[in-house]
């Protein structure tokens, strides 16, 4: 028992020493880092190397509540990249360089996970362009990383403010959320007017996430501009029981409901509405998903009959390439493409068309992100000169400086006979929009 006291004094001293050393090591690490760290900017590509591949990365939600969308987007991307590489022979102006899907990262269902996925995707594969991440809040998180690393990020997410944050390396072709809301309102009012249906009171029923709120704002703006009395009812998209909302609606007695669902709440609302015996003239959905996508129709069945919804993609647009792509998609995956796939269709073709032009404008460094952004900004695509425009609902793509498509717009589809049919802006051949709902 050689003096416990002395041993303990030693422990005390040692504790101080350990602390000191940890701090010293940390400081030394910082110093070493400052001395040896590589220059933070990625090395610019030197004179005209042979470009054989263009690395595309994807970050999509593959787990969690949103996995259904992410998976479809990835499926679509694989198809389009295959078409570009095989049918179109790669990027011809870059000597037939192929698009390579170097990595597909799971965005999960939370921004932290998405940001992590973006860090990993970039650190591991150094992609030239990243596509993702469908859910707006996840997209924003990934964009924080892509901006820092100067990787171009092509959104397939819709919330307005994604392009309002001053990011420099982002593009978005799809119509933003408020455009969905506005289109839905415009469509509902014009159809009601056309059919002589009274629209004295409109309820804007929306889930209360950022997305739903933006879509609703678009619809409300449109209603206010037309001086239509409206009431806004919100709920969380995690809602499990629409009973109380139905009671509210029973009290308000609206003629038209503009409904902004996410996905599963849409399924739930459609069922609750049918079960309630409530009668309104039209339920016009607005927003990316719900009601008219194959998943919803499958999940809800008859209850969703005659509901309409806006869509960032028009699967029945009668252009050559649209028909072709839809056909290929259906034959490969056994179901028609929904919105998540559609956005990927035109986004990837847009990127492809930009790449074709890049070697023309910047022969020395076509893949430099700054150069590439300039190329994208310079494109003005129409049905006549572009594949991507043929796949786009409005048939025209030109980017504003913030990365948004100036000519963005949506289609409106209605479920008729258990099938989603396009009724706006131009009904499919042989389709007549149904209003009021029977």
């Amino acid at each position: 028992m050689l003096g416990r006291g002395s041993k303990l004094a030693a422990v005390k001293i040692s504790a101080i020493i350990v602390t000191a050393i940890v701090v010293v090591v940390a400081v030394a690490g910082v110093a070493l880092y400052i001395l040896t760290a590589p220059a933070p900017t990625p090395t610019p590509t030197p004179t005209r190397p042979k470009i054989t591949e263009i690395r595309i990365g994807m970050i999509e939600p593959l787990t969690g509540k949103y996995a259904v969308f992410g998976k479809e987007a990835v499926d679509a991307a694989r198809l389009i990249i295959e078409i570009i590489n095989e049918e179109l022979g790669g990027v011809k102006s870059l000597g037939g360089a192929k698009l390579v899907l170097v990595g597909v990262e799971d965005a999960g269902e939370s921004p932290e996970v998405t940001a992590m996925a973006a860090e990993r995707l970039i650190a591991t594969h150094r992609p030239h362009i990243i596509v993702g991440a469908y859910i707006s809040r996840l997209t924003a998180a990934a964009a924080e990383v892509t901006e820092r690393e100067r990787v171009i990020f092509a959104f397939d997410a819709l919330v307005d403010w994604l392009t309002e944050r001053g990011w420099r390396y982002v593009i978005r072709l799809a119509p933003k959320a408020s455009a969905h809301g506005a289109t839905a309102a415009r469509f509902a009012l014009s159809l009601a007017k056309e059919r002589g249906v009274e629209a004295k009171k409109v309820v804007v029923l929306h889930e209360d996430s950022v997305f739903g709120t933006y879509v609703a704002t678009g619809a409300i703006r449109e209603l206010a501009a037309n001086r239509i009395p409206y009431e806004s009812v919100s709920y969380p998209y995690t809602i499990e029981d629409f009973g109380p909302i139905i009671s509210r609606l029973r009290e308000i007695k609206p003629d038209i409901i503009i409904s902004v669902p996410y996905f599963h709440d849409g399924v739930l609302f459609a069922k609750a509405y049918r079960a309630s015996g409530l009668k309104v003239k039209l339920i016009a959905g607005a927003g990316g998903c719900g009601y008219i996508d194959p998943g919803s129709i499958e999940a809800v069945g008859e209850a969703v009959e005659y509901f309409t919804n806006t869509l960032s993609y028009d699967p029945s647009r009668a252009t050559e390439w649209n028909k072709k792509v839809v056909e290929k998609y259906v034959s490969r995956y056994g179901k028609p493409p929904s919105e998540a796939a559609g956005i990927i269709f035109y986004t990837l073709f847009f990127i492809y068309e930009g790449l074709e032009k890049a070697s023309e404008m910047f022969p020395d460094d076509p893949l430099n992100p700054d150069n590439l952004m300039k190329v994208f900004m310079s494109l003005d695509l129409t049905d006549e000169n572009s594949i991507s425009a043929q796949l786009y609902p409005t048939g025209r793509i030109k980017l504003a400086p913030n990365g948004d498509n100036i000519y963005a717009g949506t289609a409106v589809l209605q479920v008729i006979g258990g099938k989603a049919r396009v009724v706006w802006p131009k009904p499919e051949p042989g389709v007549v929009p149904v209003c009021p709902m029977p």
Partner: protein
Amino acid sequence: MGGPTLKASRFGWLAPPLALAALCGLVPHMVGFNQYYILVATRIAIVASVALSWNIIGGLAGQLDLASSAYLGLGGILAAELMIKYGVTPWIGMLAGAAASAGVAFLIGYPLFRFGIREVWYALSTVALVVVLHELAIVLMGPFDYYVPPVEGWYYLRFRTWENLYYVSLVLLAFVIVVNLWVSRSKLGYYLKAIREDETAAEALGVDVRKYKLLALLIYATLVGFAGYLYVVTQRTYSYKTFSAPFSIYIAVIGIVGGLGSVDGILLAAAMLGMAEEYLRATFGGTLPGLHLLVYGLLLVTVGVLRPEGLATVTRRLLRPVRTRFLGGESA
């Protein structure tokens, strides 16, 4: 404790922590400044700090606290908001966050301990705290994500690349380890361990059980609240979802899997679980949705059922040769 080897061991026990510190300090160099790996390491360091803070209430005092995300969120969100709205440097914001967390901990802890609430009911109360804050935050902040604006520099404690924050997190981790060692070797630590073992017997030895449990809760909440801003920065966003019951459970799981009260075990568990989770997510997340969480769940079940004493015993076994060389015997 045998006498003969004591002399050799006077400073010998410093070797493993020193090696560890050196290893940690050099991580950015070892991974070639790959931002992804540095971020993973940073997050592991922060999670380990939180888990070791939890160790004071959960490991030493034996109270099944599942509210770490409540304190982390409070501290982080307060510091971030102060910075965004008033330009207050996070260095002050983190202190404010720590104080706010401690305040909330007192409000919840005082009545709980006063009414002698323990075990599953204490655990559920802390879950309830997280749920209440989560939903309160939806009402107050809306269902939005908030981003720390892209400001950079030491004033904002936010950088373009992750190395600096990694070192800050390491210093925080070192501080939490020192607090752990200090607490477990102080009167407070002995009293907390006695409370964990047997509250009634501890009381008969003159331990004011309520007071010391509250003290442990306050230390834990203060440390976690302080770490909040770093957490928010590495997560990039904060929102009502920052108050997350699963995250709180994750922290407790690290504490349990690592071994209650054991600093080395918890460090090891935080590192292993953190890396395993990220590896599984990155490797399988894209092909098989949910697989990483599934494996993580299975791991939890297996460790819990087969090795309920925690990883501490594994570390002990691994480190035994080192320990006997430098320490001259098993130490507690």
